């Protein structure tokens, strides 16, 4: 009964999206009025929310009803809707904060969450929130209102200050370098189904904010510092932040030994692409960013839910403890397969369309160095994608639980199937996605729509492709290769002979702990730059910050000595000094 109610609650974003009438308003107090309204941009993100909420809610329904978690999830949905519908900054902030604390409390529902993770999650997110509040107040000071609309008549430095504050706030939420410390830990340790929501949606709210930024300032980022090559100079900085984030996070992801941590780093990397695209700021780039946001939401939901199913059935998260699950969990296998194809941005799935748009926009801005760096990151991403399918599903089962696992329960499978369907459908018809979802937003942002001649086609000034054709080609190739494999399999089995190298030593049996992917990524440390990146982290800096604060606390607590005479002495001394200072000064 509670479960049913909860599932209904998870449908509310969809209801809001479909049933939204005219704007709402709620007077908060003197001079502050909350207004809610649905714009095309917020409708886009609300659509993501509406799609994801029930899909994440379904896995949460399994087992005994965890009513506090249900309530918190409901609050989280409420906060996010408020955030997206906000017509003024105060509502935006309220939604932002409700989202922050309810997601934090949900994070605590996991028994694995440790103190450092919880603290880093809440502190970084509150830092982001307070930066946002500071930005809002500065905005208010300059303009005298809280509404989210173009701020006219600001001087240059005012715009830069505002863009900096807002930008930092949203970038923290997105988790770009060097503000990403909280991301891998919390995605890793959160309850399994909830990780999907964190990665797929909560981080998207930062993206929403970043996309809002250009609407706030009339000339977008171009107005701030002028132009560089064919793009805005301020955006160039942002784009580099994004690219560096994706490169570092990609390499970090490759070297992970834990499925959820790998996904967390890959999430950071993917959001790095989006940041880059927003930095470019052209209509192509924003289209790409939105498309990437859409695809990333679907893909990460799919992957995290599939992985959650594996964790549920095996209790293992480390690659080395898994293996050979393909036969035991075939649907999850296909889920992960489709997921990584989308994640890697390979055709024919829509991840390709998104990346294509971003690449083309970089080309258009003639930021070729960035383009090269991004290609590097997205190529390296293949490696971790490969690891994700290879390590759990193929090879050799390495733990007792991996040997006896069964397919995930239906609560996990239904979302997977739905998401697979959506991804394939979107891959077939990339033009449909552009027409239905991206173009209305771009038009609302006063940019040129991307347009597409038909549902199946994606076109850009630099060429395009037809999704249907591509899908047919790839589908045929897949069927052919698989068919050939199964046909030839009988003969391939005989390939091993007593003269093979493996017979030189002992033949590994099913009991031997053996993993083909073991130590993968270890060799990366030998590559000069990559090794340096992998060895370093921002953790030391933040740990030092914490240490300094503790020392300060200890020093200051010396005042609170517990000896009344010291209190009186201090009071008298302060009194005497103040007296001396003020009367002596006269």
């Amino acid at each position, binding site marked *: 009964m509670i479960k049913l109610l909860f599932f209904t609650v998870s449908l509310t974003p969809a209801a809001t999206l479909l049933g939204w009438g005219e704007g709402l308003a709620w007077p908060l107090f003197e001079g502050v009025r909350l207004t809610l309204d649905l714009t095309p941009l917020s409708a886009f993100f609300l659509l993501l929310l509406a799609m994801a909420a029930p899909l994440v809610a379904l896995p949460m329904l399994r087992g005994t009803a965890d009513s506090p978690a249900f309530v918190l999830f409901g609050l989280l949905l409420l906060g996010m809707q408020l955030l997206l519908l906000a017509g003024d900054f105060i509502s935006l902030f309220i939604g932002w904060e409700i989202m922050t604390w309810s997601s934090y409390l949900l994070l605590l529902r996991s028994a694995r969450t440790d103190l450092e993770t919880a603290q880093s999650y809440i502190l970084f997110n509150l830092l982001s929130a307070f930066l946002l509040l500071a930005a809002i107040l500065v905005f208010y000071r300059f303009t005298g209102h809280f509404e989210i609309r173009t701020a006219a008549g600001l001087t240059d430095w005012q715009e830069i200050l505002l863009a900096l504050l807002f930008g930092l706030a949203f970038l923290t939420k997105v988790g770009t370098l060097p503000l990403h410390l909280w991301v891998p830990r919390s995605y890793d340790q959160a309850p399994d189904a909830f990780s999907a929501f964190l990665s797929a949606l909560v981080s998207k709210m930062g993206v929403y904010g970043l996309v809002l930024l250009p609407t706030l300032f009339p000339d977008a980022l171009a107005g701030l510092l002028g132009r560089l090559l064919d793009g805005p100079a301020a955006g160039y900085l942002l784009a580099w932040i994004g690219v560096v984030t994706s490169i570092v996070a990609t390499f970090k992801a490759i070297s992970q030994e834990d499925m959820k941590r790998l996904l967390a780093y890959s999430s950071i990397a993917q959001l790095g692409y989006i940041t880059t695209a927003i930095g470019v700021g052209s209509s192509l780039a924003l289209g790409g960013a939105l498309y990437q946001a859409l695809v990333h939401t679907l893909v990460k939901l799919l992957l995290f839910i599939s992985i959650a199913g594996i964790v549920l059935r095996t209790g293992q998260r480390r690659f080395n403890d898994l293996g050979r699950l393909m036969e035991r969990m075939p649907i999850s296998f296909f889920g992960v397969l489709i997921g990584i194809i989308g994640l890697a941005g390979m055709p024919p799935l829509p991840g390709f369309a998104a990346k294509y748009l971003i690449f083309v926009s970089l080309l258009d801005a003639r930021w070729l160095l960035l383009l090269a760096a991004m290609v590097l990151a997205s190529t390296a991403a293949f490696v971790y994608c490969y690891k994700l399918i290879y390590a759990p599903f193929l090879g050799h089962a390495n733990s007792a639980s991996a040997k006896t696992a069964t397919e995930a329960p239906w609560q996990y499978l239904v979302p997977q199937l739905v998401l697979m369907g959506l991804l394939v459908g979107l891959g077939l018809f990339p033009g449909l996605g552009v027409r239905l979802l991206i173009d209305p937003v771009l038009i609302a942002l006063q940019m040129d729509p991307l347009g597409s001649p038909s549902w199946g086609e994606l076109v850009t000034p630099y060429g395009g492709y037809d999704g249907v054709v591509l899908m047919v080609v790839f589908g045929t190739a897949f069927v052919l290769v698989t068919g050939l494999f199964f046909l030839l399999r009988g003969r391939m089995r005989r390939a091993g002979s007593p003269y093979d190298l493996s017979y030189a030593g002992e033949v590994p049996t099913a009991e031997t702990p053996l993993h083909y992917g073991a130590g993968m990524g270890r060799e990366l440390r030998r590559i000069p730059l990559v090794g340096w990146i992998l060895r370093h982290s921002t953790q030391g800096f933040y740990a030092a910050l914490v240490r300094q604060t503790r020392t300060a606390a200890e020093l200051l*607590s010396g005042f*609170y*000595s*517990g*000896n*009344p*005479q010291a209190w*009186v*002495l201090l009071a*008298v001394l302060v009194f005497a000094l103040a007296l001396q200072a003020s009367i002596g000064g006269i």
Partner: protein
Amino acid sequence: MLEFLDSPRVLHGIYVLGSLTLFVIGLYGLLAKRHLLKILISIAVMELSVYLLFVGLATSPGETAPILSDGLRAFAGMADPVPQALTLTAIVIGMAVLALGASLTIQYHRLTGNADVTAMTELKDS
């Protein structure tokens, strides 16, 4: 010979000096003594110095106490009655605080066996 003492300025100066000395003595006791009762006494001395200052400065030489009796019906040639009344009230209050303090000290001593202010370390930052 000592008539100059009767001029209000000098007299008030002496009162100020005297009460300030008392105040400082009280403050010294408060800061330097470790026994709880001595600290309470020091506080009482500080309060006393303030009362003395008040009454002293509010009275000019030659004025009598503002008590209406024996046929006196008006406040003529008398000191300002307000400070005297207020001081009386303050003394009563100070008395009450002192009594409370003394009783707490006694209870504390009975319970723990010490009356040293620096030995009160049950409550502190951990």
